[in-house]
């Protein structure tokens, strides 16, 4: 494994050299029973190892998806708010605003099967049987325009599905591309001719409040007058319309459904309490809110967004992330 740090490899070699000493065991634990291993050993590898016998088609997958998944991932698997989009985004990976989905990004179909089977639906994991998982994964492929609507996915044709970004990954190459450059004696004196501030965090003003609110709002005004002009964000926000059919939506489906239907009997997400607390927080802070850093003095900067409907589908009314930099880097 070339990418493995030399230090670790050396250490591991020492460990292995000492292997005879490890032959001694403590006799602790007990042998795992086959049924126990079957119950827990669910992982599926890229070559299909671990896949159970079964199958499911796109149409059944559609029903199952609307029932179990659409509340977070959208009717068309296009995502909802900050919840992950699963479809679309092909050709965007080199853009300023890449859209990473099962179709545009995931290199292995096994990953989708494995994750749906093991960890979805959110809040009701491991409740789907293998045929249902095959059907949902088939629907995700259909949503990504990778199969037709009469497609059936099974353990037998699983490896026949070509994932568009299968060749889009390289093994960590920092050892070759970065470390030789940065393992050098650094400059200590006269390292630059000039230093200028090129960007300030206050421009975006998306830092959570950490001071105690109220009481000191007058001093903010004075400080704000000295704040630098607000600059336009360098990046556009992620755009998504949940009301229109995505451009990548298959033609056949466009004709059969003019618009996404309402989510049918979708379970309420387990997350309701958190959302309620968010709303109440936003309402109470409208008048007394102060930010960590004084706000800018331009009309744009001083516009109070408290209480207004956020432009960003899932942003808090108090804060409007306006840069691509605010994109959620976390799986949810």
């Amino acid at each position: 494994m070339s990418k493995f740090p030399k230090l670790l490899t050396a250490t591991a070699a020492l460990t292995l050299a000492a292997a005879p000493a490890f032959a001694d065991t403590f006799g602790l634990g007990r042998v795992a029973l086959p049924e126990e291993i079957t119950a827990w050993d669910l992982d599926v590898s890229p070559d299909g190892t671990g896949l159970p016998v079964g199958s499911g088609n796109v149409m059944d997958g559609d029903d199952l998806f609307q029932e179990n998944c659409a509340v977070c991932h959208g009717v068309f698997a296009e995502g909802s708010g900050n919840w992950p989009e699963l479809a679309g985004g092909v050709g965007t990976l080199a853009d300023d605003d890449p859209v990473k989905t099962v179709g545009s990004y995931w290199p292995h179909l096994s990953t989708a099967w494995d994750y749906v089977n093991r960890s979805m639906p959110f809040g009701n994991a491991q409740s789907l049987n293998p045929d249902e998982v095959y059907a949902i994964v088939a629907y995700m492929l259909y949503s990504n325009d990778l199969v037709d609507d009469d497609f059936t996915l099974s353990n037998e044709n699983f490896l026949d599905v070509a994932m568009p970004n299968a060749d889009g990954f390289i093994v960590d190459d920092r050892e070759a591309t970065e470390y030789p450059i940065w393992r050098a004696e650094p400059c200590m004196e006269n390292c630059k001719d000039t230093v200028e501030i090129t960007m300030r965090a206050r421009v975006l003003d998306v830092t959570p409040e950490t001071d105690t609110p109220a009481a000191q709002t007058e001093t903010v005004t004075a400080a704000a007058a000295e704040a630098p002009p607000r600059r336009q964000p360098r990046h556009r926000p992620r755009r998504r319309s949940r009301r229109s059919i995505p451009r990548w939506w298959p033609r056949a489906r466009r004709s059969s459904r003019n618009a996404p239907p309402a989510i049918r009997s979708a379970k309420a997400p387990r997350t309701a309490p958190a959302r309620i607390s968010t709303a109440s927080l936003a309402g109470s802070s409208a008048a007394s809110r102060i930010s960590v850093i004084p706000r800018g003095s331009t009309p744009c900067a001083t516009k109070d967004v408290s209480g207004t409907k956020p432009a960003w589908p899932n942003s808090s009314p108090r804060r409007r992330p306006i840069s691509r930099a605010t994109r959620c880097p976390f799986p949810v």
Partner: protein
Amino acid sequence: MTDSSNPTKPSRRAFLSGAAATGAALAASSAAAQSPDPLITEVQPWASGLGDGVDAAPYGLPIRHEADVIRRNVEWLTADTISSINFTPIHALDGTITPQGCAFERHHSGAIDMTKGDYRLMINGLVDRPLIFTFADLERFPRENHVYFCECAANTGMEWAGAQLNGAQFTHGMIHNMEYTGVPLRTLLNEAGLSGDVAGKWVYVEGHDASSNGRSIPLEKALDDCLVAFSANGEALRKEHGYPVRLVVPGWEGNMWVKWLRRVEVMDGPVESREETSKYTDTLADGTSRKWTWVMDAKSIITSPSPQMPIKHGPGPMVISGLAWSGHGAITRVDVSKDGGKTWQTARLAKPGEKMALTRFYLDTEWDGGDMLLQSRAIDETGYVQPTKAQLREIRGENSIYHNNCIQTWHVMPTGEAENVEVS
């Protein structure tokens, strides 16, 4: 008497309004007091009455005056707190050990409530004997103590495209550093019996929670220094950190430190799970993505002064303090610049750096009351020098999300306030 009823520290705005007066007082303080200090000349309540008895708090929390030293969430980052992250208040901490109660949390399906009695750990796959261990079994193996940092790969990930969040807590707070007690994973693998060649083999590790958060780790690393830990900082792991058992993967990204560890499978290849393909892969400018970027490169951050920790005194002696760490080994040196990287001074390490653990540095210096563009730069035992954001962007672009270990800049203003900025 002073404002001892205020549960929080003076805010920055309170500081602003009182800065002039404070500065004047400080300027005069070394010469002579203007009037007797009533805190000294008058008998204070605490000097006359009685305090709390023992057992007022059978398990104590920090005194109420430190109530603002807490984990904080950035609401807009994620759709929900169940699958989300919060941030260690590193700006307000000193030394290197992170108290468990304010160490950042990262859950994928929420922090589960599991007893030691219900805990089981399975070792299976390419082993001689697939085994099940109970918690009590784990306690009977020889155990070790090690201090390690755990850094989320996405720490500083919101700063790739520009300076965005005002506070070391938010830019660098996806990290904690604890003393772990546990059993080396190699001990447990040996108990199950490894035969044949180790090279090219992997372990797949997963948790008891609904996300499972499965990750593939080369067997070499598993046999090297991974720890199956059940205590941190001398007490049981907290629920939010994987009680009763989590995996510790020193120097490698926090996502691999699987909480509520339930299964370790020895395999002949990586699973390429969701957490190691769709997430925790680093997209470069041309759209290709690096995978298996496990090691956390050398990094440092000035925790004070910083946006949440303005300078509250006038010109004169001051301490610039920060943290440095490297997944490649020990920190050997940290340099600090006050002028945005034109000139650098080598800071003092509070203790010699330890492998894959936080190192505290201090620059004991003088503030002239003017603007500063504060930066710190970590150097580790491999000679790796923490890069600038421009250097990182040149190679990776701005879409990597993960592994942003750039040099951070704080603009400290004459008011003592500080802001997160980028400089040329």
